[in-house]
Each structure stands twice: as C-alpha cells, then as structure tokens.
C-alpha cells in the first residue's frame, strides 16, 4: 500500500482537461454502453474500466476530434473484452449486431441532448405517482423485485406498469421532438 501512495511529481497536466471531457460525456457514454450490455452492473464495470484506459491513452487523443467517438471506440472494445472474459453468451448480441448498434449510436449523438430535454418535459406530463414509481426502480443499485414488493405491487404487475410508462414516455418524446423539428 505504501508504494501506491508514493507519487513522484506530476508530469502530465492533461488531467483536468481529461476529467472535464469525461464528466461531460459520461451520460452519453453510459447510454452507449447500455445498448451493448445486458445489465446495468455490466455497464458500470465497463465504464470504469473504460475511464481508466482512456486516461492512460489520453496522450494519444487528437485535440479537435470528437472525444465521444474516441472514447466510444475504447468502450466498445472494452465491452467486448469484458463479455469475452466472462464467457457471457446469454442475451448478448452477436458482434455483427453490436457493430451495427454501436455505429448507429455514435452516429446519432446529436439528438441525444434533445431527447434528454424532451424527457424532462414528458416526465412532467406523467402523473406524480407514475413518475415516482418509475424513478424509484431506476435508483442506482435498485433491485427491481424488492422495489416492486416494497411498493406493494406484484413483481409482474410492477414490470408491466414500468414497461407501460416507458413506452408512453418514448411516444411522448417522439412527439416532442417532432414538434421541435417543425
């Protein structure tokens, strides 16, 4: 442990820049990984690994090019590596489908922020109870079944409710974006 604390003088001053870039792209990067990985805990693991590797390679990042595209390519590789190491086959898409999804996810970075803003408006339109039920199940680390039980729902009923609310939100977002475009 002592060695881990022994740090010679800093030689790389890009750290602040890196952190700023990482922080501002983290939500988008997480959404990107979510398309490739079947589980949120997988996403968190790979995201952490990706941040470390990106920091190590940051010297090779070309200023002025897209940080998102750069870090997404690292994330994509790390996701594949992660799945390979764990021998996880179930509910993991084939490399071909993953490549399609990854390419399209990076290509459609523009509407991302718009969608988030639209989401805020659509959440407002939901009833309070529905909104809270929905967000409760999304708290980091929340275990769906337990939340369902504690909210006094059957697990299946709760799943159905959440799915229904999400589909409603998707429709609403699509509508909002359509109106924005007009």
């Amino acid at each position, binding site marked *: *442990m002592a060695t881990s604390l022994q740090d010679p003088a800093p030689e790389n001053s890009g750290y602040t820049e890196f952190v700023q870039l990482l922080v501002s792209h983290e939500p988008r990067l997480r959404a990107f990984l979510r398309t490739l990985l079947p589980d949120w805990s997988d996403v968190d693991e790979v995201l952490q690994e990706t941040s470390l590797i990106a920091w*190590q390679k940051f010297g090779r990042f070309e200023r002025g090019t897209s940080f998102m595209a750069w870090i997404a390519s690292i994330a994509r590789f790390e996701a594949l590596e992660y799945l390979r190491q764990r021998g996880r086959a179930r509910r993991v898409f084939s490399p071909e489908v993953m490549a399609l999804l990854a390419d399209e996810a990076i290509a459609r970075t523009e509407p991302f922020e718009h969608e988030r803003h639209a989401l805020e408006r659509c959440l407002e339109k939901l009833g309070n109870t529905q909104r809270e039920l929905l967000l409760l199940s999304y708290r980091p680390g929340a275990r769906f079944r337990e939340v369902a039980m504690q909210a006094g729902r059957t697990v299946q009923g709760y799943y159905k409710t959440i799915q229904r609310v999400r589909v409603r939100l998707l429709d609403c977002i699509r509508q909002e974006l359509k109106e924005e475009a007009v």
Partner: protein
Amino acid sequence: MNETRVTMLIQQWLQGELSDAEFGELERHLKTDPAARTAFLRAANLDSALRDRAARDDHMRAWLAHQPARPSSTRKLFWPWGLAAAAAIAMGVFLIGGVRPRSLRPALEATAQGTAVLTQTIDAEWAARGPRRTVGATLPPGTFTLQKGLAQIEFFSGAALVVEAPAEFEIVSSWKVLWHHGKARVKVPPAARGFEINTPGMKVIDLGTEFGLDVDRASADARLQVFSGEIEAHPTTGRQLNLTQGQGIEQRGTSISPLGTVRPQDFPGLDHMRDLGRERAAAQFARWQAASLAQRRDPRLIAYYPMQPDSTSQRLVRNLAEPGDALRDGGAVGAAWGTGRWPQKGALEFKGAGDRVRLQLDGEYQALTLACWVRVDGLDRRYNALLLTDGYDPGEPHWQIYENGRLMFSVTYEDPENPAQRRNQIYYSPVIFDRTNTGRWHHVAVTYDNRSGAAIQYVDGVEVSREVHRFHAPDRPVFFGPCELGNWGIPLTGHQFPIRNLNGRIDEFAIYSAVLGAEEVRAMYEAGRAE
C-alpha cells in the same frame, strides 16, 4: 416490422426478462431492420436517461425519507406513503452506495431484518439497552422504551407512528406492534391496511386510517380514538367493534364504553413533528452560524470554507477565514450544491468520478489541524478523498478514508538514508464508517504536530486515535500547495488507484496551522451538530 412486438421485446430485454427464443427474435429484428435499431437505441437511451435522472434525485429523496411530510424546497413532490417507506428501505437496506453499490451488498444483507425506520425524533431519550436508535436507523424487531421526547417511526409496511414519551412497545414485524403503554398517533395508508396494534386488552386492526392510542402504564386501561377512516377493535373479552371517524372507546378492565368526544389535538402528529423539526433545525442552524462567525476570526486558520453557495458564482467555494484571502478561495468542479446538515445549510455533493474542489494553499507550516463535516454515502473506492495534495511531495499531507472505513491521515518525507526514496507516515483510525453511519453527518478532525510527531484523530468531537509514527523525525515542515477536497488531482498514468472521489457531501471544512486542543475540537462539534 411489427412495432408493438418489437417494442415489447426491447422493453423486456432492458428488464433482463427475455427467453432465449425471444432474444433470438429481437436480434433478428435488430440485424435486418433499421427501424428496430432506432427504436432500440431510443429505448436504451431513455433507460439510461432515467437512471441518471433517478441518481440525481437521490439527495431529494434522502431528505424526504427523513421528513416525509415536508415538501422539498426545490421541487414539489407528491410522495405516497407506501413509496416513502419503500424509499426509506431502499436507502437503508440495499442502496447506500451510489456509484458502485454492488460492492456494498454483502454487508447490507444483514440489515434486511429491519422492520421500520426511525425517521425523526425530538429530544428523544431511549432506555439504554438495545439496538441503535439514531435518526435514520433501521429498527429490527424488539422492545423499545422511549423515556423522553417524541419519535416518528415509519414501518416498511407503510404505517407510521408518532410516539410520545413515556412509552414502551415491541415491534414484532412491519405489520404488527405490541403496545405495552404510552401514547401514539398511528397513520395507516391504504397500502398498509391490516396493520395491527395489540394492547394488553385489545387487538386493533387498521383499515386505512389515522387514530390515537393511549394505554395507561399502571392499569393497562386503553383509550382509542379514530380521527379518520376505520378500524376494527377486537377486545380480548367481548365482541368486535368497528369504529369510524369521530368515534372512540375506553377500555377499563373488561368493560368497554364509548368516548363522548375525540381529541386529535391530544396526540402529536406528523405535522407537529415536522413543525418542531423545522424549529429545531432553524435554531441549530442559527447556533452554528454564530459559532462559525466567531471561528473565522481565529488567526490560526489557513483557510475556512463554511460552504454556503455564493449567489455571484455557483462554482466559487469561498475562504471566509479573516482577514479575507481570495487567493485561497476554492473552485468547485463537477460537485453540485445540495443540502447540508440543515435545510438552510448548503453542502457540496461529490458523486461523479470527476467531482472535486480545487484549492491552492501556499505556505510552510509546523503543525496542522484539518476539520470537516462530512456525510459519507458509501466507500466506493480503495481510497476516498477528504483533502489530498496533488503531488504528495515531501511534507505534503493526505487525508482520506480507506475502503474499510478507517480514517487515514498521512504525510510523506524523504528517506534520510536514501533521499531518492520516500517514506510514508500513515496514521489509521479505528474503523469509523460502516453501514450504520453512512448517509449521516459526522464531524471528523485530525491534528498533526511536526515537533512531537503526534497525529490525533477525532470523530464527532471524541478522540479516536493518537500515534507517533516510527518514521517520525522532528521539525520537518508541512506544505499543501495545489490540493483538493473530495478527490485527487493529478494521479499519474498507470497509477494503481487513480480514482479517489468521495461519495458523499462536505458542508464545512477548516484548515489550521496549529494543533487544536481536544476541547476546541469538541466545541466545534458541539456548535455544529445536527440532531
């Protein structure tokens, strides 16, 4: 594409609920149909956005779970009772960690025995034996004796009780309580219908209501008054009675008689608790403010950050040590302003891997005291930063929390025999942070004297460790230079533990150029403690 079918498959994939055959079907759609891919990316993006959003709401929820009747100051939320309980459970039982909750799970399983959360108390004194009864604690089954004050208990079932001392009761489960004696106001939302309270002579089953219960200690006689809704009373002797709003009964021995009037005002309720809680918070905040104004004039201060958000710049963390030195103002990066020890108090919240407050503290010192109010929400990293100097060069201190919950103060110096090498003087406290005290405000402090070499650590005003390091050599100065709160500035490429962000909040930080005495540390804690 069959839009409804694809939508359904995507939703189930997100939930991890697809069969192998359905998964194959989804994959075929994604492979061949651009519209399916767009729908998929949208749904995954929404899933991600909702998760970010829910994490952002955490601080609000934490506050609401403690004071369910109080609307948030920043955004009004409707908060159904069952959900408040669920959120409290979520907080207490399986959700303390923010960024990497999985690592905390094994330790958290133990508290699954809980039945209720102690959400608020006013001047409460409990009989000494038994489990922890601090606000926010999860209560296991067992007997509780409230000797003084008021306590608000929210059961996982959704039922809530305001208990007035003196009272004694036994929690059997989140659905059942044995009421030995004392006064309580019970509120049962529809979700907790069937919640049961047993007095010495009667079983009361709640059908969704609010009622008052008062059992005399000596005679065990009971009075029951319904303020709204309906209850069933099953006397040990005699027939079942159904009581509705405005009705009450009195039980003396085996005789039961109706009460002429009900008097809700005799039973302190949730509103009363909330009002008292607000008054209490305002008084404590005022006491802290007065102490803080006096503290700033201490000439031994290197810097003092009371952490009230500044209206002119959200990113500025002012150094208010007098006389003012703006060069020692801090700059918040990432960390957002949230609520501190009281609703009136600001705090900086450290959640993201990049969150931090940058400081530049020049000078050379012979001693130091670091003191702060911190709410640790989880120990996600190997090292969790409080104050770390960027370079950790000779003479520079590090103050952090090790992953096992020990406070860890260290300072590094050159090895006198081999100046190219460093020697770390690391001082550990005993284990301070565990699942019982995460999510609460604590005062932590450390003093270091470069003459004696003693490092003394304090938690909540009490000394927890005192040590002179074996590598100590007298009179080597201490420096800070560029440093930061809540994170570590410039770890090197390939460093083994570069990410040290704190998961929690800091709402006051003081840095002194001298060793403060135990009495002074104690006084700082007393002036700033929140009930």
